[in-house]
């Protein structure tokens, strides 16, 4: 049976990547922390007696399912919000529009300035933004395969889909990321 220290070491290894992966999806620091903490709790509670070699797969699966649950709940919440949206003040709409205009202006301006892209932190921010914009399954396939260094079969098991589907998702993800980064003047 695995010891407490082994479990601690494993969680310490994966927690930062897990947090970032969830953050790309949910875009909220507190929600990301909650999801990661719940995944840790679930792993400790249900799978503590499993061999340590199985933990990475189990943890990624728990995390993936937690993300899917979060997005399902968000969809339901957004549905009800969209029903109430027409009742909101026009001022709110005007404010939202101006924010959208600012965001799009900022995005278009950013791509035209290659000097900005030279800054490492900005490159990082652009990469993270591009990853966050990917569809959920593409992002999960890409990050599990290349960041968590899982093979295609393992990613397929975590995501509950076929190996071919994983390859397609990760190929599309890389393609989309390369196009977005190129448009912003970033060549990796």
């Amino acid at each position, binding site marked *: 049976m695995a010891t*407490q220290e082994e*479990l*601690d070491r494993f*969680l*310490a290894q994966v*927690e*930062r*990547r897990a*947090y*970032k992966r969830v953050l790309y999806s949910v875009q909220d*620091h507190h929600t990301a*922390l909650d999801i*990661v*903490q*719940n995944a*840790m*709790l*679930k*792993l*400790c*509670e*249900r799978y*503590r007696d499993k061999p340590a070699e199985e933990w990475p797969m189990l943890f990624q699966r728990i995390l993936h399912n937690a993300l899917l649950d979060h997005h399902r709940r968000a969809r339901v919440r957004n549905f009800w919000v969209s029903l109430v949206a027409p009742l909101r003040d026009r001022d709110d709409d005007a404010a939202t529009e101006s924010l959208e205009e600012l965001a799009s202006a900022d995005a278009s301006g950013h791509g035209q300035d290659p000097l900005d892209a030279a800054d*490492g*932190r900005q*490159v*990082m921010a652009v*990469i*993270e933004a591009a990853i966050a914009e990917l569809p959920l399954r593409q992002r999960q396939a*890409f990050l599990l*395969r*290349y*960041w968590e260094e899982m093979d295609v079969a393992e990613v397929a098991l975590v995501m509950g889909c076929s190996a071919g589907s994983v390859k397609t998702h*990760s*190929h599309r993800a*890389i*393609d989309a*990321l*390369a196009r977005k980064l190129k448009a912003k003047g970033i060549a*990796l």
Partner: protein
Amino acid sequence: MNEREERDYAARMMCHLNAGLDGLDRNVLKALAAARRHALEHRSEGGAACHRSPVSGDFRYGMAAVTVLTILAATVPMWWPAQRPDAQETGHLDIGLLTGELPPAAYIDEDFPAWRRLPGLCRS
């Protein structure tokens, strides 16, 4: 991009992402460490309580205490007077006053308390 180019591109991107991990905010790292400790403590407790945080535990105990106090507050005022030994006697005296069996001035009579203590009176 072919598969090899994809892998190379992804590897270069992962270098940036890994570098980003080192720059994570200190508060985030603290929060993650606390979450890990909490999960491991939960493990050492044997997983008796599912996903219990200290806050939710306190809340549960608080709710139980409030429920018990509410039940006590509702039942004690009803139960306590009925248990007093003179409660029934006072009731009989009230009935006697209302039916005219006792004059209202009985209460100012000096011998009235002694009379009350006599057995068998006002109990018909």
